[in-house]
């Protein structure tokens, strides 16, 4: 059914129509505004075909036949109220400018013809956004991103999975001011949509989300407390169940004190679902350059670190200067190795050891020894490793890594190592899933447009430029898009915008937007987004439902974090995950025999947690009686060294 005529195309010499832009006027009460999609019907065939043009309104003008405001003043004798009582209202126009989304036929590409303008129907929206090529048929791969709503038309807007998750394009950048819950909510919604709609033939998909502030992502496995009928209707219309994520695994490092995990998801009812994230020497040394500044570590120190990584760690090391063999598997081992080496050099008044000067050795000892202190809770002295299940990632699962309470250095280390591990496993097709979405909030902090060229930024650039071939997809969120490295933003095939700051909109990155579009962006409501996608000729405004998960704020109200426990309580709580019958009293008895070596107690707890023995208390007690040896989850071999970021690791 043809939609009623909304307006008429107009063109003047001063304001002509082009193949990319046209103008039309409407009745004063027409249901049209910035963002409305319209269809132009021409009556003049070209090559025997009547052209049909789809456009989106980018600007609106309203004016009367008044030549200057002064004339109105004169007419009203300077009395503002008098104008309203005039018997006739001045002739007034609503003139709109629309950017062309699509012309059918596509060739010859001509200026938009004169014709009638109609509100787009649902089918028109599909055609205008070229969704007809990927939403239907045997190769359907549309991922709903939201609903287009204007003038009574409701239409689902889909992204092309091949352009969202690869291989054609990939990555998503979402920008918006803080405090409106748009960025995190939109990503949660979009992940739910991907998990629901990504066709099975496209392979398995998982998500790794870094929780960088507060409790943002700490309760995404819990249902939302308030999901109004409008949200539910949107879920229905977009074909996504209004449910929380079914498979979520949480990871958090220990608090520096070691008694509890550094996360806000510590409520007794939920604490068991958080797995400790701890790394030892090998895992940390591999990414040492993340933590060591270039100014601090010169070429000589670099050479020594490389020597230690390749010749000392995780192997039997002998040297005539040292008493016996060393097996360095933890920071404690490394410290012993350094101490013995330096003592021997000093005793022999020796300045060089294997080409390394004693000053360099002292410096490297100092810097590496610092790491376990700076990243305490994440990096363990004893080498205990508890990591994400690389190799056993599950389909449609979300892995939340809570780094909100970590220092900046430690956060960088977590990003670097996890993303590198994901990449390495995806390269070998051995992650467990074929595609991983990595969600990083505050991307402007990790991949800034200016400042030092850090390891993390290089790594994010690398993903942005080559990750799509691997299935490693970056979903980055930031308040200010202009402050994110342009290669990261530029490689994001899909871009979402929530409400934007006016100053940000004044930056060059937004020059292509019409003033009215910018004005709308500056006043977007919660739940509204502007979407840029390779198939869409122009940005489109959509509405998305509130995530069907518990928000961070509500989560901490509903599940307030547990009090900081005593050592006994902390151990008992942890061990209860394995054996719920264990009491605080039993733990107190065991600890009474162990003395007050708190670090030894926590080491014993960590090993027990990793080993998951049948008799938990007995195993824990046994661990206290001996020095805890470094343990590695899964007994994996050494991880490969990182390939330089400058190389093209993916063969183009």
């Amino acid at each position, binding site marked *: 059914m043809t939609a009623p005529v909304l307006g008429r195309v107009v063109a003047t010499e001063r304001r002509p129509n082009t193949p990319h832009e046209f103008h039309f006027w409407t009745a004063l009460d027409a249901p049209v505004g910035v963002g409305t999609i319209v269809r132009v019907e021409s009556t003049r065939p070209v090559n025997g075909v009547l052209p049909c043009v789809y456009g989106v309104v980018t600007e609106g003008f309203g004016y009367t*036949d*008044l*030549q*200057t405001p002064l*004339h*109105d003043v*004169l*007419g*009203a004798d300077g009395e503002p109220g*008098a*104008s309203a*009582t*005039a*018997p*006739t*209202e*001045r*002739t007034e126009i609503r003139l709109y400018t629309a950017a062309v989304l699509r012309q059918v036929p596509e060739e010859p590409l001509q200026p938009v013809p004169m014709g009638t303008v109609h509100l787009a129907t649902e089918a028109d929206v599909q055609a205008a956004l070229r969704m007809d090529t990927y939403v239907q048929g045997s190769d359907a791969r549309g991922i709903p991103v939201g609903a287009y709503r204007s003038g009574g038309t409701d239409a689902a807007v889909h992204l092309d999975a091949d352009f969202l998750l690869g291989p054609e394009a990939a990555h998503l950048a979402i920008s918006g001011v803080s405090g409106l819950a748009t960025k995190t909510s939109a990503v949660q919604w979009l992940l739910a949509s991907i998990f629901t709609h990504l066709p099975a033939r496209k392979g398995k998909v998982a998500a790794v989300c870094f929780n960088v502030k507060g409790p943002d992502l700490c309760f995404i496995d819990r249902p939302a407390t308030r999901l109004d009928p409008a949200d539910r209707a949107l879920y229905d219309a977009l074909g996504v169940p209004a449910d929380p994520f079914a498979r979520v695994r949480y990871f958090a490092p220990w608090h520096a004190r070691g008694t509890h995990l550094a996360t806000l998801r510590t409520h007794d009812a939920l604490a068991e679902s958080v797995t400790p994230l701890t790394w030892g020497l090998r895992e940390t040394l591999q990414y040492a350059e993340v933590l060591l500044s270039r100014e601090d570590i010169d070429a000589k120190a670099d050479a020594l670190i490389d020597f230690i990584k390749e010749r000392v760690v995780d192997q039997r090391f002998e040297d005539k200067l040292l008493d016996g063999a060393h097996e360095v598997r933890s920071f404690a081992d490394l410290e012993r190795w350094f101490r013995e080496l330096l003592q021997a050099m000093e005793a022999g008044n020796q300045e060089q050891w294997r080409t390394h000067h004693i000053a360099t050795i002292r410096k490297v000892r100092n810097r590496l020894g610092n790491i376990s202190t700076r990243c305490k809770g994440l990096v363990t002295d004893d080498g205990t490793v508890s990591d994400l299940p690389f190799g056993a990632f599950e389909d449609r699962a979300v892995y939340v890594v809570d780094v909100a309470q970590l220092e900046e250095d430690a956060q960088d280390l977590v990003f670097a190592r996890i993303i590198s591990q994901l990449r390495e496993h995806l390269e070998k097709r051995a992650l467990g899933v074929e595609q991983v979405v990595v969600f990083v909030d505050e991307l402007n902090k990790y991949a800034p447009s200016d400042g030092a060229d850090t390891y993390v930024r290089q790594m994010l650039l690398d993903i942005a430029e080559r990750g799509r071939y691997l299935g490693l997809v970056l979903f980055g969120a930031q308040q200010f898009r202009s402050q994110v490295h342009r290669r990261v933003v530029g490689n994001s095939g899909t871009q979402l915008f929530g409400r934007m700051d006016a100053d940000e909109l004044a930056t060059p990155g937004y020059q292509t937007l019409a003033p009215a579009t910018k004005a709308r962006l500056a006043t977007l409501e919660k739940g509204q987004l502007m979407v840029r996608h390779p198939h869409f000729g122009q940005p489109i405004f959509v509405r998305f439902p509130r995530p069907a998960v518990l928000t961070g704020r509500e989560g901490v109200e509903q599940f307030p974090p547990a009090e900081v426990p005593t050592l006994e309580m902390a151990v008992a709580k942890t061990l209860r995950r394995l054996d719920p019958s264990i009491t605080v009293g039993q733990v107190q008895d065991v600890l009474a025999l162990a003395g007050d070596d708190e670090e030894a107690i926590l080491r014993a707890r960590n090993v027990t947690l990793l080993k998951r023995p049948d008799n938990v208390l007995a195993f824990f007690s046994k661990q206290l009686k001996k020095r805890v040896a470094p343990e590695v989850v899964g007994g994996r071999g050494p991880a490969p060294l990182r390939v330089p970021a400058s190389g093209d690791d993916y063969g183009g």
Partner: protein
Amino acid sequence: MRAAIRALRAAGVGVGAAGAPLELRTTVDDAAPRVEPVTPLEGDRLAVRAVPGVPAPGIRAFLDGIQRSQVLAHVGAVPLVHGAVAAAVRVRKARRMRTWGEARRREALVLPVAALDAALTATLAGAVPLVDTTAGEPAPPSGHPQDLAARALTAVQRMREAEELALVAAWVADGDGPLLVDGGISGSPEGARAESVIGVVKSHRTLYAAPSELPLVLGLREGERTTAVALHSPRRNPVASWYLRLRDPGERSPLFGLVRVEVAPTGDLTARADAVSRWVLAERAPVALPDPRWDVMVYGIRECEEYLTAILPR
């Protein structure tokens, strides 16, 4: 105009670029300004009267017509003129204007048939409507190109007046409420008799007052009117008329803001003149700027003109 140009080319007449409209090049009414004494209808002599009460909208519709004449070609010294006219009634509803029924439009090739080759006029007549500028004229054209152009312009003016008169007649028959006509109504037999038609004249080449009464007319202050007088003319219908000052002239011309209102000379003329004056005074807003005649033009007429400009055949 395209049809006329095609017809001329088909007839072998060279068509040059259309120049400025004749309306801008020729003075139609070149008679000298004059003063004409009239018969009072209110009282026994012309007097000044302040319009009582508060100006209030009462006009329901506005009628205006426009014309455009352009010389398309010359055959010898004879200009061949394309004339286009349009007229419309714009009805006000909820403070917005809409066209009442259909606007009237007409275009023709305006020429002196007698001065042209019969075969040429026959050929042109087969393609476009022709209007003969010599038909019904007592004197034959002088052959002076400007005289011929002036006659063409007069013919186009008559075309426009005919369309306007047709609309006045239609409104009297079917319209609802007072109609304000741009110009006099004495040319319309129906309009000059109908209570629903009001003419507002903006130009004053003839001032209807005795020379001794002129200071009284020109000295009207804003919101004042003269008493009504009777206007008679051999070729026109009798109407009642009075002067009304819409805006204070201050230091400007004494004709600034001065209009002459025409109505059918029926009923209680004082009450009717006061009521109509209040209606016209109410139409001062919105101001008709940027039209140069804004001091005497009501907005409804300007709006009608804008509408007609948009639809005038080109």
